[in-house]
């Protein structure tokens, strides 16, 4: 009987291959959806046992290496995120997929993600990391070669960094499995405390941490390494982006948490703490803070709907990194909580973008507008997503952000607190820009017959929106699971209420009083006189008559003053930096090709002579 873990990991891949092979319109979608639903079903079946504390082990020996897979509570939480958002995204792909090629590689990346969350040794982790990257790269390649090239180059740099780090660890520790690696590092930390000779020297530990930072930083899209994300998220099938940014970026976050789990003590012993946060953690947190601000501000200045949400998902990952960086049990719980809520509302947002792009065929804000009447269901979903991402109390976005704020500020880190607070306003800002340009205002004439979302996409959106609301009103549900994962009662309180000791948040009371408030406002509203519906052109333009030819909505360049205020900072762009490095490397290669490998035998003879002379002098 094949072990459940194997089914969870490989079900999507097998379904993908079959779907790709069969390539029959109806059957392909069905197999794809089954491929995404099966792992989720098994995860739900295994949920009580894993959360009960008993780990499910399974070892596979293959080509001389033993891969052991374990379903630990941490892996379970992330796998559940991948399962739910993956299923919703796959439902989206049903209606937006162009060919079976996309089915194969979307489900392949889903397999990679499940493999990462379930593998309990570095080698398996790396292999599935590569499968996931390859799958997502092929998805982007289909749409735009240049964007995929940039994504490929950065992912390869990340992958090599991770490979080198794993190599160093394997050389010193002699085994890949997390258990031995963890024991080796904690022994090392203990030795380091006592002052004995440690297995890893200080520079080696710094090197490993740096390499892991780069590797996971690329995938999570932290500030200096975020340049691939806007292009990769934009140039692919939009409902796949829901999975791409909702789930795949969580692997980067899982990686950072892995650093804590494996090497936390060793790094703490080595580099000490910075005002009650581990020094190495503060680096991650500060990078996360920068990512929030940079991602948010750039998101506000975008003209393309997909780019806006790409930058927005980078900035939301910044929140999670801040949570991880601070390093206390509460802040890591907050980070995972925000990872869950981010996956939910970002997946929902990208499905909404997929619907809009699928129905209108347009992607820039300039030629969209007034879709609220034409696509009421999608607008309702967008309204829930906006409330959740902007952090409006009754929804999950606020609950996770609130826990994160409290965790960061209570650790006496004022600068990080300020950055996180600024981030919440930025989220508010670019969401209103999106809402104004897409849903409200004057509708261009060619969008008049747009229909609402197709059924599979609608189901996908409904699932995520429902979860957004349920986890928002009852954050205790998530908090209790997180306490089990971290093993410490950081967030107490009932199902409706979160209690952190120095701050309490009651979601149910908020919902009740908000409804009471809106009911009171409604009563006052309906006491007033009848209301007359007025067309868009009957609007006050200093008395001038207005017809549909006039452009009544500011869709282009909505935040021009912000762009002018930030003109100085916008000149510094890491994207340009990497492109310059790329072109510089190309020129260097050009020079080499012209002078060194110029193909005539005579210069090769000279090189041979020189090498022999050197060897002779060396006295070999």
């Amino acid at each position: 009987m094949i072990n459940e873990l194997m089914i969870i990991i490989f079900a999507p891949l097998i379904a993908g291959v079959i779907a790709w092979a069969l390539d029959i319109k109806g059957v392909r979608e069905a197999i794809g959806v089954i491929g995404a639903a099966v792992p989720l079903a098994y995860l739900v079946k295994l949920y009580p046992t894993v959360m009960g504390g008993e780990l499910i082990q399974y070892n596979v020996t293959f080509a001389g290496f033993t891969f052991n897979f374990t379903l630990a509570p941490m892996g379970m939480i992330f796998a559940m995120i991948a399962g739910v958002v993956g299923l919703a995204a796959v439902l989206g792909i049903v209606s937006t997929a162009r060919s079976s090629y996309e089915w194969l590689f979307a489900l392949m990346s889903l397999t990679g993600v499940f493999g990462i969350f379930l593998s309990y040794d570095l080698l398996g982790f790396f292999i599935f990391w590569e499968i996931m990257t390859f799958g997502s790269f092929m998805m982007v390649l289909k749409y735009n070669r240049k964007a995929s090239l940039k994504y490929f180059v950065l992912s390869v740099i990340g992958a090599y960094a991770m490979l080198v780090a794993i190599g160093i660890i394997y050389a010193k520790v002699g085994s890949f499995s997390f258990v031995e690696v963890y024991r080796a590092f904690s022994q090392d930390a203990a030795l380091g405390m006592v002052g004995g000779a440690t297995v890893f020297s200080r520079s080696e530990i710094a090197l490993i941490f740096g390499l892991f930072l780069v590797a996971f930083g690329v995938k999570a899209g932290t500030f200096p390494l975020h340049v691939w994300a806007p292009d990769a998220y934009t140039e692919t099938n939009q409902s796949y982006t829901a999975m791409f940014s909702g789930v795949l970026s969580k692997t980067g976050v899982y990686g950072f948490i892995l650093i804590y789990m494996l090497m936390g003590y060793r790094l703490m012993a080595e580099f000490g703490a910075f005002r009650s946060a581990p020094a190495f953690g503060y680096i991650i947190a500060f990078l996360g803070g920068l990512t929030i601000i940079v991602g948010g501000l750039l998101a506000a200045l975008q003209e393309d709907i997909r780019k806006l949400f790409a930058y927005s998902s980078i900035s939301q990952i910044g929140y999670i990194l801040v949570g991880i960086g601070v390093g206390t049990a509460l802040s890591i719980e907050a980070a995972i909580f925000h990872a869950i809520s981010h996956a939910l509302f970002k997946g929902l947002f990208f499905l909404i973008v997929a619907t809009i792009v699928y129905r209108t065929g347009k992607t820039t804000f300039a030629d969209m507008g007034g879709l609220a009447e034409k696509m009421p269901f999608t607008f309702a979903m967008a309204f829930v997503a906006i409330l959740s991402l902007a952090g409006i109390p009754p929804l999950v976005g606020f609950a996770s952000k609130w826990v994160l704020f409290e965790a960061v500020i209570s650790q006496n880190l004022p600068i990080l607190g300020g950055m996180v607070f600024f981030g919440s306003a930025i989220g508010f800002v670019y969401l209103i820009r999106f809402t104004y340009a897409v849903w409200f205002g004057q509708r261009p004439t060619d969008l008049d017959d747009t229909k609402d979302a197709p059924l599979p996409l609608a189901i996908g959106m409904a699932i995520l929106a429902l979860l957004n609301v349920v986890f928002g009103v009852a954050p205790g549900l998530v908090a209790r699971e997180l306490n089990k994962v971290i093993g410490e009662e950081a967030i107490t309180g009932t199902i409706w209420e979160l209690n952190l000791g120095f701050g309490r948040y009651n979601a149910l009371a908020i919902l009740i009083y908000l409804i009471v408030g809106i009911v009171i406002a409604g009563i006052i509203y309906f006491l007033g006189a009848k209301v007359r519906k007025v067309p868009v052109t009957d609007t006050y333009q200093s008395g001038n008559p207005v017809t549909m030819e006039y452009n009544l909505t500011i869709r282009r360049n909505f935040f021009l003053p912000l762009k002018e205020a930030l003109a100085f900072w916008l000149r510094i762009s890491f994207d340009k930096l990497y492109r310059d490095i790329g072109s510089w490397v190309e020129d260097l290669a050009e020079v080499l090709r012209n002078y060194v490998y110029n193909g005539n035998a005579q210069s090769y003879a000279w090189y041979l002579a020189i090498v022999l002379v050197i060897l002779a002098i060396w006295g070999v």
Partner: protein
Amino acid sequence: MVDWRLFDPLFEYARKRSMWIVSFCTGCGGIEMPPLATSRYDFERFGVMPNPSPRMADLFLITGYVTPKTLKRIIITYEMQPDPKYVLAHGSCPLNGGIYWDGYNAIKHLDKYIPVDVAIAGCMPRPEAVMDGIQKMMELIETGEADGWKRYKENYEWYRKNQDELFGEGWREKTARRWIPWLMDKKKEVKEE
């Protein structure tokens, strides 16, 4: 839906004591507004407040002569105001064209196009006269005679006929589209139209 007749005295008092003026100075009397708002006369004592948007304004001051071009804007602004709305006309020009009686571009009889509740004499009445006009308007509201808006609603066809007679049919679209070719710098199209 609810029958508010019981509270009518309160509503009339509130409408009387809080008239918001559309800040749209239509003619030469617009310069009389600042003295009213500043410390010597200060109509804010009566709750009168200038307000740029017609959607929340009640009182519409026609300050002086009205040209057809301005009348188009006045009609549009007047129709945007929610219902209990009042018009206060300054000087003799809105009544019979005043000194521009033979001008081709001055409206001779404003009452044909929009209902006027109170008219103040004086070729640009002094602030005292305008304050007196506002007092008179408040009296009319108190006694319920300020029914210009009711007249406009009941015989709207008559008003509409007069307006279309002066401006021609469909003047709103024509005026709106008048500048578009020049705004979009498409001068040639003007010839073909």
